[in-house]
């Protein structure tokens, strides 16, 4: 049985929820006063998500919303870094449900509205390391996947979790471009213990607001110790399987992208080094930084891979 060593702050350091809520109400009141109840304040209120902080957050400075929403990979909207921002506006994210099935006793659907109201939304400020050797710090808003999975009553034979992205060529032009960059739908998978790990979340927002479409609205996976492409976007289906599920980049090029795809500076991509990364947001002269094993989450997740040869199972 793996032992998780995630940060556990002493109880005295945890802000009581009531204090957080009070602070929130105070700030909201102050904002309301400052803006004089203008239309701006009400629309801002709608966008804002109610969140609580998390001990899993890094204290590194998050990237700006402009950086995070303007520079991303979402091949359903084109392969350019700016393409998602340009084309994802067309995506309709309501109504939205995630179908949950496979090896569960209680299959069903998750409605995005329930996800936003039934759970405590946590601020999770995570490092994100792209397989292309750049990185960011993203202040996600999300829910631990484990707490969502539980109610579907897993069967004992379930060993993996499979995820699937929406297919809607009318709104995701690259799915119908006549020229297929990737096989659709985009699919990803995790081993069950990875999926249940407290760091693994379903994100519904970032920077305290609902997810911009280009970042995987309305709900996406975030697994911070793996390369970004594992964190599948705009999820419509989750199923539990006994066999290792297919993963899009692994299908595309198994020599270059493994099923696990843990951030690992000692295993290079066959065509480029993974030893260091460029932190986005530092401008033209930003210093390269050394890539950390498991993207710096080794204390929490290394035990998941005890006894595995990560050079083979990359």
């Amino acid at each position: 049985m793996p032992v998780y060593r995630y940060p556990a702050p002493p109880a005295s350091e945890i802000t009581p929820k009531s204090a957080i809520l009070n602070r929130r109400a105070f700030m909201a009141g102050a904002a309301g006063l400052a803006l004089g109840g203008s239309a701006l304040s009400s629309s801002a209120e709608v966008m804002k998500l109610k969140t609580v902080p998390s001990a899993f957050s890094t204290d590194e400075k998050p990237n700006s919303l402009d950086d995070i929403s303007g520079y991303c990979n979402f091949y359903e909207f084109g392969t350019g870094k700016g393409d998602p921002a340009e084309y994802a506006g067309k995506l309709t994210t309501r109504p939205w449900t995630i179908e949950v099935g496979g090896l569960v006793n209680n299959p069903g659907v998750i409605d995005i509205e329930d996800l936003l109201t039934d759970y405590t939304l946590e601020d999770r400020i995570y490092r994100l390391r792209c397989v292309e050797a750049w990185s960011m710090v993203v202040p996600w808003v999300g829910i631990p996947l484990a707490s969502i999975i539980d109610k579907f009553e897993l069967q004992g034979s379930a060993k993996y979790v499979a995820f699937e992205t929406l297919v809607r060529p009318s709104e995701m032009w690259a799915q119908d471009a006549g020229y297929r960059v990737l096989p659709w739908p985009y699919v990803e998978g995790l081993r069950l213990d990875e999926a249940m790990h407290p760091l693994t979340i379903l994100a519904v927002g970032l920077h305290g607001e609902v997810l911009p479409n280009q970042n995987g609205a309305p709900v996406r996976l975030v697994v911070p110790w793996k390369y970004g492409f594992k964190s599948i976007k705009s999820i419509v289906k989750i199923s539990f399987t006994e066999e290792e599920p297919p993963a899009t980049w692994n299908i595309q090029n198994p020599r270059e992208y493994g099923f696990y795809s843990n951030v690992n500076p000692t295993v290079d991509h066959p065509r480029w080094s993974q030893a260091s990364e460029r932190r986005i947001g530092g401008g033209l002269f930003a210093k390269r930084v050394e890539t950390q094993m498991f993207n710096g989450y080794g204390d929490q997740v290394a035990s998941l891979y005890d006894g595995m040869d990560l050079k083979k199972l990359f």
Partner: protein
Amino acid sequence: MAQSKLWTATPEWAVYAVGLVPAVDLFVRAFSNALGADPLRVLENGLGEWALRFLIAGLAVTPLLRFARINLVKYRRALGLIAFIYVVLHLLTYLALDKQFFWGEIGKDIIKRPYITIGMVAFLMLVPLAVTSNRYSIRKLGSAGWRKLHRLVYPAVLAGAIHYLLLVKAWPPEPIIYLLIVLVLLGVRRIKPARCVRAAA
């Protein structure tokens, strides 16, 4: 031969002036932080792509003359040298801003990463061509020798296009299109023009 005045009236310096506009634009925007979240990538890739475009333009001069009767031979040297300037800027951006002169990592890159190896080979092939792009060298090498040397541009452009293709994930269309254009421009050179054969007979 019917020849549009525009082709012959434009001075060579104007080609340099226009050709270097994208470089100036890229650097101005890079230094004024107007290239988005990852200015280095836009600058580095942008310079590389313009290098490839000007190499392709230079490669198109002969087919245009033969098949479309458009004579741009006068500008070929300018196109080639502009391409070389972009190659040098692209390489300097990689060395100084991307790899930040970490020579160990650069050395490993050149040896271990085929796309970097091929890019470097392309650069090395272009150096003697840039150096001999003047009348003095043509005289010194002799017309035949000079022309033989400058055939190096064919493998160099091909290497440049492959360098781009090996860099991308999946198969986005742009590098494939560039490679196809290069292959077509190299391929048409093998077609023996019937006209010339008749004229020679």
